[in-house]
């Protein structure tokens, strides 16, 4: 535990150092990145050491604020979430040390590093905190740090808008958490987590769950609470987006799991709600991703989709808990947790990759890219691995976690059990299948349009391989995708203690249901190995077949069209068109068409923009209505002093009339001389 505090101290101190050095961008970057990396390394060391020993370490200091205590604890659940935070942040720090070089001559990078390191420290404290006050403070520090990181390039209008949306969303989300913590602590009068568990609140658990779902769901990005997310991720520096998507939004999941542990009376409908919200997030998230042509925005929507998958897993777990169905419970939670790790890895990878693309080509617009794999073979290949992984295809890690979720459903205790269990299972199966197919569609589109084919613009043609410090983290994460895919049974084993903790079961109790998934997982892993071997073998066969024969290189067959240019290639929008057209009701597509006119049309253009469904249908009308309603009262302050005095007069008059007529009965003899006798 002391080492974790050292890690936090290193992070904060190095951030401050970076601010002090801000006039010397290189030094500032050095301090920030080295401090960030070192802090993460120390933290990782501490977490792994504690988790390895199987003990729970805790620390409790007094803290002189109302209801506050500086209580930290490292248990399996905390450790489980701390690891992706630290790994991803550490890699992002390495990556960032090079990425920020573009800002050296025009922005102060000290601020950037300060808030980055603060963000990491905040996330670390959030998972360790065992006191509501500490949790909320760390939570907000984390959010505010993220806000400053998002708005780093605040000269741009879209960055400012995104920052505002983020800030408002996170603030409103926190309001729900405040209420939730207050209600949790209403009985014990303290905000220590230990007391929450010991003296269960008298407030209905349903309300607490809903508050937690909205509060934490906002951070995680569950639909329709996700609106800040597709705005904020694209505008933040890429490595920050990676950390926010991979680690920070997971803390919403962490919070929800942590709160579930306090709530004794788990209701089935919570599970239904989680599954429903998850399915909506997953399907609409990936559909919205399909509609985007901005790479980072697309990745942001894909984060919503993955949060949806995680939420469905949690829903299964909750359903299992409430119906005393250990298989559903264990496999649901385990699948969700597994996907947390996996998403951190491949989404981190993809965001870092998007940053590479952006710096190499100065754009994230898919339609202005193309042919990047030739120009950055290593990074591109790593991104391909990430894309396949996020599409949930074997033999990579994305499949492993989705398989656990499928396995939770395809089960004697799931799909085959009573209706109340099997219907949600079918919902999960159907959603996962659709999400899987659409995700494959979406990421084929990303990789195929951006990295394959011919470059569509000179910028894309001039792209170069990134610096080693930027490509190394990406390659490491890609290796992680493969490794976890092939070693999935081992990782699954490590998740079980966390599940045991969440469900308050003994580890031994959950091992038998867990075995239902772990045995097939090992087969899946072996099939994965076989796939690699088989593909390798076939490659050798082809090499043998082609040896000594003519292998020619020529242009692509243009189906008889001989003067093709790169611009004739299929574009991202046209690639997505079949899906957009088919799922049209879920898109709000604004089309700007400049049709060719006249006998000799000069130029024509077609631009489509897909706006966010819930922003358009829920938030804009809602905020607009509130604004109009309140605006109607603005005549109150019309500038005339007479009216102002009138307000004072009317107030006192109204109060007197109220008081005299309501509080005082008509004069009769009994009233006079009523004297309050009260001993001091």
């Amino acid at each position, binding site marked *: 535990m002391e080492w974790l505090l050292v890690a936090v101290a290193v992070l904060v101190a190095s951030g401050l150092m970076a601010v002090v050095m801000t006039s010397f961008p290189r030094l500032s970057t050095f301090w920030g990145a080295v401090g960030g990396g070192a802090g993460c390394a120390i933290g990782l060391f501490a977490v792994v050491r504690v988790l390895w020993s199987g003990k729970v370490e805790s620390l409790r200091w007094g803290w002189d604020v109302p209801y506050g205590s500086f209580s930290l604890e490292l248990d399996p659940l905390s450790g489980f979430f701390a690891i992706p935070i630290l790994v991803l942040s550490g890699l992002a720090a390495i990556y960032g040390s090079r990425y920020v070089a573009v800002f050296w001559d025009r922005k102060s990078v000290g601020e950037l590093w300060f808030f980055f390191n603060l963000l990491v420290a905040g996330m670390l404290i959030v998972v360790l905190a065992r006191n509501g006050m500490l949790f909320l403070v760390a939570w907000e520090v984390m959010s505010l740090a993220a806000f400053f990181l998002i708005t780093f390039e605040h000269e741009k209008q879209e960055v400012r808008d995104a920052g505002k949306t983020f800030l408002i969303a996170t603030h409103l989300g926190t309001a729900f958490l405040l209420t939730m913590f207050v209600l949790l602590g209403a009985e014990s009068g303290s905000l220590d987590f230990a007391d929450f568990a010991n003296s269960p609140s008298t407030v209905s658990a349903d309300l607490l769950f809903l508050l937690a779902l909205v509060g934490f769901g906002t951070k995680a990005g569950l639909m329709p609470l996700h609106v800040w997310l597709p705005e904020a991720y694209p505008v933040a520096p890429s490595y920050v987006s990676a950390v926010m998507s991979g680690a920070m939004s997971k803390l919403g999941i962490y919070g929800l799991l942590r709160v579930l542990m306090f709530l004794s009376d788990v209701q089935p409908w919570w599970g239904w709600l989680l599954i429903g919200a998850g399915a909506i997030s997953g399907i609409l998230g990936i559909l919205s991703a399909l509609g985007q042509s901005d790479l980072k925005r697309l990745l942001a929507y894909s984060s919503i989709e993955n949060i949806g998958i995680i939420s469905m897993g949690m829903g299964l777990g909750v359903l299992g808990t409430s119906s005393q169905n250990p298989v559903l419970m264990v496999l649901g939670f385990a699948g969700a947790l597994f996907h947390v790790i996996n998403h951190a890895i491949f989404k981190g990878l993809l965001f870092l990759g998007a940053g590479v693309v952006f710096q190499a080509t100065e754009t994230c617009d898919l339609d202005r890219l193309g042919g990047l794999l030739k120009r950055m073979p290593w990074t591109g290949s790593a991104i391909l691995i990430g894309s396949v992984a996020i599409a949930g295809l*074997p033999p990579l890690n994305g499949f492993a976690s989705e398989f656990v979720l499928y396995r939770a459903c395809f*089960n004697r205790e799931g799909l085959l059990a009573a209706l109340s269990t099997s219907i949600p299972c079918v919902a999960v199966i159907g959603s996962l299948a659709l999400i899987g197919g659409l995700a494959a569609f979406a990421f084929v589109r990303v990789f195929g349009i951006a990295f394959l084919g011919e470059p569509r613009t000179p910028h894309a043609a001039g792209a170069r391989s990134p610096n080693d410090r930027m490509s190394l983290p990406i390659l490491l994460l890609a290796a992680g995708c493969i490794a976890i895919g092939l070693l999935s049974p081992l990782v699954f084993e490590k998740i079980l203690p966390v599940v045991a903790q969440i469900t308050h079961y003994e580890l031994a109790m959950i091992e038998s249901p867990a075995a239902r998934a772990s045995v097939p997982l090992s087969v899946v892993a072996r099939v994965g190995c076989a796939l690699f071997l088989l593909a390798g073998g076939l490659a050798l066969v082809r090499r043998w077949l082609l040896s000594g024969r003519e292998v020619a290189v020529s242009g692509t067959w243009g189906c008889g069209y001989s003067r093709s240019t790169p611009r004739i290639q299929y574009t991202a929008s046209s690639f997505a068109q079949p899906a957009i057209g088919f799922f049209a009701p879920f898109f709000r597509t604004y089309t700007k068409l400049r049709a060719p006119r006249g006998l000799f049309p000069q130029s024509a253009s077609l631009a489509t923009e897909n706006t966010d469904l819930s922003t358009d249908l829920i938030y804009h009308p809602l905020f607009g209505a509130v604004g109009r309603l309140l605006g109607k009262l603005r005549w109150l302050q019309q500038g005339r002093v007479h009216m102002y005095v009138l307000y004072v007069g009317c107030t006192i008059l109204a109060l007197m009339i109220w008081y005299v007529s309501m509080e005082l009965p008509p004069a009769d003899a009994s009233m006079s001389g009523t004297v309050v006798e009260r001993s001091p």
Partner: protein
Amino acid sequence: MEVATLLPLAVTLIMSPLLLGVINRTKAMVGGRKGPPLLQPYYDLIKLLGKGAVYSRTTTWVFRAGPIVSLAGCVLAATLVPLGGCESLIKFHGDLILLAYLLGLGRLCTVLAALDTGSPFEGMGASREAMFSALAESAFLLGLAALARNTGATSLTQMHAALADGAWSVSGLTLALVTVALLVVFLAENSRIPVDDPNTHLELTMIHEVMVLDHGGPDFAFILYGASIKLWVLGALIINLVLAPSAGESVADLGVALAGMLILAVLVGLIESTMARLRMPRVPQLLVGATALSGLALVLEFGGIGK
């Protein structure tokens, strides 16, 4: 490992191109032509394997990896499917998911390879293939979920075994619905009419064929072979469903199943001869229809009506 478990895989690997031959031959006969020999697909494969290769200078290693990974995925998928009383080589709870996703991996590789060429036509085909398969996937998995619910089994081999006990007489309606849904998936995934016309000569209307325009030589052979395995694997699922093993003797069952496969091929040939390809916008509706059928089967199962 019993030898019997290797049998379905071996049969698949050996006999799968034959199905294409049977389909083509049927179509020719219905059309009043003599048609190519039954073994023509084998000849094609051998011919292609013996050729050199031409690669576009636009392409990268993805283009070359595509056919290989795709074939590998299809072969591994074949190891998961039982046939006619023979258990599959690899069987575990939830193997049907792996099957669906392995086929998905193969498709993804083909699509990526198509996009790698930078050809607009191949991009178009890739887009359609990706979209249709995304829809087919849910129909497929929901159909299998209905089967699982019906049979109480969660691996393909178990399901196959459970169906043997005269399941059709008990819950024929469910099974029929699932069969139709799987048939649609089978046609769509294998680019057959009414979803796609493998014999079309207009690139704009092609789906699968247009994606592999640039492949040649051994690569194309891998693709063709992979496609035929996929045809066999999905066909085998339908045959397993329709012709439940009853003889109790694996050789006889296998024979029945193989006969069933051939009949299925003839059936596909007949469909292709009598139906026209659907308009492109209608295809997703067909697939959603299949999903609906799967869903209906599930509802029937939940309601206990299908039994």
